[in-house]
């Protein structure tokens, strides 16, 4: 265990934790916005996969990760329109439509990959960007300021999302629509219009999360996200629908994962015990939530379609 507590290993572990947290964070922030407005999307995993594949494929063909990210954003907007149609117009049951999106995303991305790419071909990812000056700080610099662009974007979005929800009119509309849509409607706020925008945002961010993942590992594969979308949804609840809470949850999960990984590398846990250790992130998430135990309200209108006729 002594090996683990060397500075260099700890630094590497924290940096790894931040990298692991990024997809959760991006997808979780998007889902938070959606849920604040009353829309649940259980299919985040499928949307992430679609974003990941889009980014991967476009980058593969054009050799430009930037174009890949842009393509993923477009994919997110398209998926957002689809989900908005399903949820707002057809008023489908949100839990189930989410599972449908998940299955579709999982199968469709695998299918496209098999047909258009086949054998995995690596792509060039986004390089790390060292923030001038800050990255020079010994240790701290390595942990926080030597990451790739999506990581910075993800964490920068945390205060942005907070600001948007709490300090802007649009944010006020989101919250109103999520809590008491009937009242908001009588006050002239377009419930479905607001939800349309939040759905677009949520899906775009989920696609971005997938893109970040694909660009970071530099490849695509069937089920690349391996459950991260569901974890992101869980973290929304962990974070009590607040962007800082989601960030803390993502970091908790990511850092614990990184720690377990490091312990396995160092041989601190091995063999079958390593499987037990791998439970740690999930267990800890529950434990922390129990300890902290704030009873925070869900948005009251969560999962209820808005129907003006009654």
């Amino acid at each position, binding site marked *: 265990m002594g090996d683990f507590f060397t500075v260099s290993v700890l630094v590497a572990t924290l940096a790894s934790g931040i990298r692991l947290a990024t997809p959760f964070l991006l997808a979780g922030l998007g889902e938070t916005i959606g849920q604040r407005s009353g829309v649940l999307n259980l299919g985040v995993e499928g949307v992430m996969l679609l974003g990941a594949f889009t980014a991967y494929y476009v980058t593969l063909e054009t050799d430009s990760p930037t174009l890949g990210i842009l393509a993923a954003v477009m994919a997110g907007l398209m998926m957002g329109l689809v989900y908005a149609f399903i949820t707002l117009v057809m008023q489908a049951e949100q839990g189930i439509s989410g599972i*449908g999106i998940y299955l579709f995303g999982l199968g469709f991305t*695998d299918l496209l990959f098999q047909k258009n790419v086949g054998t995995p071909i690596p792509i060039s990812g986004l390089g790390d960007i060292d923030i001038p000056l800050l990255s020079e700080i010994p240790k701290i610099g390595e942990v926080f300021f030597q990451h790739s662009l999506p990581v910075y974007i993800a964490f920068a979005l945390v205060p942005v999302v907070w600001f948007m929800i709490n300090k802007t009119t649009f944010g006020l509309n989101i919250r109103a629509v999520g809590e008491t849509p009937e009242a908001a409607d009588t006050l002239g706020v377009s419930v479905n219009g607001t939800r349309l925008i939040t759905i677009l945002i949520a899906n775009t961010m989920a696609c971005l999360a997938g893109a970040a993942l694909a660009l970071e590992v530099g490849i695509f594969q069937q089920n690349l996200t391996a459950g991260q979308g*569901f974890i992101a*949804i869980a973290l929304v609840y962990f974070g009590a629908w607040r962007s800082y809470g989601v960030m803390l949850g993502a970091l908790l999960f990511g850092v614990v994962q990184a720690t377990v990984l490091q312990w396995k590398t160092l041989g601190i846990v091995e063999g079958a015990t390593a*499987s037990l250790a791998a439970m740690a992130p999930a267990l800890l998430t529950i434990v922390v*939530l129990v300890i902290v135990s704030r009873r925070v*309200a*869900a948005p009251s209108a969560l999962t*209820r379609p808005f129907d003006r006729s009654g």
Partner: protein
Amino acid sequence: MTMPKTSADVGSIRSSALVRPFVALAVPLAAVAVAFTIGAIMLLALGANPIDGYAALLDGAFGGWNELADTAIKSAPLLLVGVGICIAFRAGVINIGGEGQIIVGAIFSTVVALALPDLPRIFLVPLVLIGGAIGGGIWGAIPGALKAYAGVNEILSTIMMNIIAAQFLSFLLQDLLTDKASGAIKIQQTERLSENADLPLLPGDTRLHLGVIIAVFVAMLGYVLLFRSALGVRLRAVGHNANASRYAGMPVKRSIVQALAFSGACAGIAGAVLVFGSESHRLIAEGGASGFTQSAGFNGIVAALFGSLHPLATIPASFFFGGMLTGGIALQQELQVPAALIVALNGIVVLFVVSSLKLRSRLTAWAESPGTGFTQVETDREPTVPRAEDSLLASTARPPGSSAPSAPNEGDD
């Protein structure tokens, strides 16, 4: 009396008795047809012949006694999980933990079989099923308790419990429960479990086994529990309006735990059926837990909602979904397209059907309202105000994050 506001007010409107069942069936079927059309386009894009493919799918799912048996076997876990979902959702709890509950149920039942291999079949089979129910029940009760007593949202806890269960399975199958006989090539599976625990085959020359009967039996039990018992009334009341139930003196917290426990128990039985009805009669985790759960924990949710959260309707819904899954394999073999297409197709079917359900209730309401050709004068029907009643999902059985419009908090039930 002034202008009638609803058909009930008139007291004398009757819809053709066929309208409701017709719409109830026609709309989802149309949705499936649209979904399959999209699938056909995808197949054409892949250079495959959709006609051959769908013929193979139907044949592989329903084309003969063996195929029907395979479909029924595939549907059994879906039905079991689905019944559990009916119970949970109607009590107002979202249970996404089916996968984990299946796993723990399977583990418990496997341990029973490993511990008592020589027990006569007539005892061992029920015991492993009970073991499965207990394992799954515990794994469901934990998130239930966490929600009721610690305010932990069940979507979070059930997702996390899935992860924990999968890791636990991996742990057990690396050493403790592993088949020692496999020699130098280690593999994550148990030994061939006691033959006395094999689910007996049903008469006839197929692979149909007792698990199918058990699933239907549990569905009937679920129906009785939900709609014919005091406990069921309580659970549904809590699901409908937790706060009102509390004011009425119902034990809300206990009900939440019970709902998730029952839900988990059903999934746990599915786990036992998956292990002891399988061809290999082992618990296998090679390549991941979903290698043996078949994602029934998720697919069961779909089946339950296709069945409108009614345990008996979940029977045909699971059969249909099971047919799609079974037929999908035949389609893949016929057309040699990537199996991923089947997964995507299933997703599209789910999307279209679930989108069509609201449309269905609107159509039913429209068809049953006075003025359309389907109605005559004379009734004893309940009012056909669309939202509250037809939309079973929206009002009574809605997976909650909210209880009722005026109810404040989700955390303190």
